[in-house]
C-alpha cells in the first residue's frame, strides 16, 4: 500500500515537472525547424534539423542587431549587479553593525517601500530620467535599479547573523570600520552576495517594462524588448523569432543550472525571515 501511494506520488510529480519544463524545451527544439514544420505541427522533433534560423538572425546585423542587443543586455545587467552589490552591502553593513543615531527609523522607512507596487514609479521616474537626460541611454536602466530595498534587507539580515567576535578582535587591532567591512564582513558574506548578485542579474536581464518605457532607439534595446519587436516586424516568421528567443534564454538557463542552489535559497529567504 505504501509503495503504491509512493509510486503514484512520483508519477504525478514527474508528469507535472515535465509539463512545466516542456514549453521551454520546445523553444530550443523548434528553433531548429524550418518555418513550414512550425506552422504545420506534426511532431515534436524536427524532421530535418536546420541552422537556417540562427544563420539568418546573425547574418543581418542592420535589420536585426541581435549582437548589439546581447551586448546591451550584458552591460546593463552586469552594471546593475555591481551597483547593487556595492551600494547595498555598504548600507546593510551600516544598518546591521554601526551605532548610528536614528538607525531604526531609517531602516523602517526603507523596509516600508518593499510593499509599494512598482507601477506607481513608472510615470514620475520617466519624467525624472527625462530631466536628467538619461532616457534612451543604459543609465536609465542601471542607476534607478539601485534604489530598491530588497538587497539592503537581504544583506542586513545576513550580516546580523555573523558573530561579532571577529570584528571586536579586528577593532582591538586597530582596524577601521571600512577595514572591518572589507576584510571581515565581505569575505564572510560570499554566499549572500552570490545569491543577491545572481538574483539581480537575472531580474535585470529579463526586465521588460523598464527598457520598453525608457528606451527608444532600436540599437539601444535589450534582448527582451528587441525580441518583442520581432512580433510586430517578423510576425509570420516563427523560426527567426524562436531562434532569437533561444539567444535570450540560453544564458539564463546556463546561470540557473550553475547556480540553482543560490537562486532557490534567495527565493526561500524572502518569505521566511521577518
Amino acid at each position, binding site marked *: 500500500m505504501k509503495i503504491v501511494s509512493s509510486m503514484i*506520488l*512520483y508519477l504525478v*510529480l514527474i508528469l*507535472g*515537472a515535465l509539463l*512545466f*519544463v516542456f*514549453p*521551454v524545451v*520546445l*523553444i530550443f527544439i523548434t528553433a531548429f525547424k524550418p518555418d513550414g514544420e*512550425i*506552422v504545420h505541427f506534426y511532431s515534436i522533433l524536427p524532421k530535418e534539423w536546420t541552422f537556417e534560423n540562427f544563420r539568418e538572425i546573425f547574418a543581418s546585423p542592420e535589420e536585426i542587431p541581435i549582437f548589439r542587443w546581447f551586448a546591451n543586455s550584458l552591460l546593463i545587467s552586469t552594471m546593475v549587479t555591481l551597483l547593487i552589490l556595492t551600494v*547595498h552591502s*555598504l548600507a546593510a*553593513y*551600516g544598518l546591521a553593525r*554601526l*551605532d*548610528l*543615531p536614528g538607525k531604526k527609523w*531609517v531602516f523602517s522607512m526603507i523596509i516600508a517601500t518593499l*510593499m509599494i*507596487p512598482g*507601477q*506607481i*514609479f*513608472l*510615470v*514620475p*521616474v*520617466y*519624467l*525624472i530620467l527625462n530631466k536628467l537626460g538619461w532616457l534612451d541611454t543604459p543609465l536609465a536602466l542601471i*542607476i*534607478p535599479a*539601485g*534604489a530598491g*530595498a530588497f538587497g539592503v534587507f537581504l544583506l542586513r539580515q545576513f550580516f546580523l547573523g555573523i558573530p561579532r567576535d571577529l570584528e571586536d578582535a579586528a577593532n582591538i587591532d586597530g582596524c577601521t*570600520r571600512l577595514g572591518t567591512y572589507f576584510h571581515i564582513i565581505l569575505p564572510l558574506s560570499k554566499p549572500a552576495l552570490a545569491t543577491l548578485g545572481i538574483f539581480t542579474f537575472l531580474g535585470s536581464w*529579463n526586465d*521588460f517594462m523598464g527598457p520598453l518605457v525608457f528606451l527608444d532607439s532600436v540599437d539601444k534595446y535589450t*534582448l*527582451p524588448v528587441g*525580441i*518583442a519587436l*520581432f*512580433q510586430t516586424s517578423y510576425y509570420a516568421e516563427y523560426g527567426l523569432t*524562436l531562434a532569437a*528567443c533561444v539567444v*535570450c*534564454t540560453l544564458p*539564463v538557463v546556463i546561470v*540557473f543550472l550553475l547556480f*540553482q542552489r543560490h537562486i*532557490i535559497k534567495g*527565493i*526561500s529567504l524572502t*518569505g*521566511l525571515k521577518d
Partner: protein
Amino acid sequence: MNKKSILYRYSGYLFLAPYLLLFCVFLVAPLCYGLGLSFFEWEMISPFPPRFNGLENYQEALKDQYFWKALWATARFVIMIVPTVICGALLVATLINALPLKRQAIFRASFFFPTLISISVAGILWRWFFNTEFGLFNAVLANFSMKVPWLSDIRWAMKSIAFMTFWWTLGGPMVVLLAGLNQIPDHYYEAAAIDGANAVQRFIHITIPLLRPVLLFVSVMSIIGSFQVFGQTFMITRGGPEFSTRVLVQYIYETAFSFYRMGYGAAMSWLLFLVIAVFSIVQFRIMRER
C-alpha cells in the same frame, strides 16, 4: 558623550550615503512627484505648461468607461490567478515535501524553471501555442476535431492569459511554501499520526496553521503582483479582443507614453495603488484573525 564621539557616530552614515541618495532620488522623490503630478493637467507634447486642476484627473477616471473596463479586466485576472496559483503552489509544495529531502531539489527546480523566462520570450511562445490556425494546442485538439479560439474570443482570451500565467508564476510561491513546509518539525506529524489523525486532518490541523505566516506572505505578494499584470497581456493579446484583456497598467502605459497625458496617468497609478492597498490589508485581516 563628547563631541568627537557624536561626530564619529554620525559619520557612520557615510556608509549609507550612496544608497540613501539613490533611495531619495529614485524612490522617495518619484513617489511625491507622482502624487503631486496627479493633481495637474499636463500633456507632455503640448506647448502648455502643467496646469493645477485639483481632483479633476481622479473625477475623470471615475467617469471614464475605459478606466472601468481596464479595472474590470484586471480584477478578472486577479480573481482567476491568485487563488489558483496559491492553491496550486501549496499542492505542488506539499507533494514535493512528501519526498525524501535529497530528492526534492530536482522537482523544485523543474516547477520553478518557467519563472526564469523573460516575459517577451514566454509571451511569444504561448502566443504560438494559442494561435487558432496553426498553434500547438489546436493542432493537438484537431485530433478530437475541436478548435478553440484561445485569444480571439472575449470569453476565452483572459482565461488563456491566466492559464499561461499559472505556468509562468507558480514557481516563486511554491519555493517559498516548500521552504516553510521544510521547517515544520516531523514529530508534530508523527504525534498526530499516533493519535489517529489521517493525512487530510494532519494537513488541516498542523500544516495550514503553522504555514499561515508564509501563506499570508505569498498571497499578499501574489495580489500585489497580479494587480500589476502587464507583460503577458501586452505580448500575447495586446489588450484585445475588444479591450477584454486591456488591464489597468497597460491603460496607464498607453495614457502616459502614447498620449503623453502624464497627470492622468499618474492619477490612475494612484487609484490602482489604492485598490492594491485595500485588498492587501483585507487579506492581512482575514488571515491574521482566524
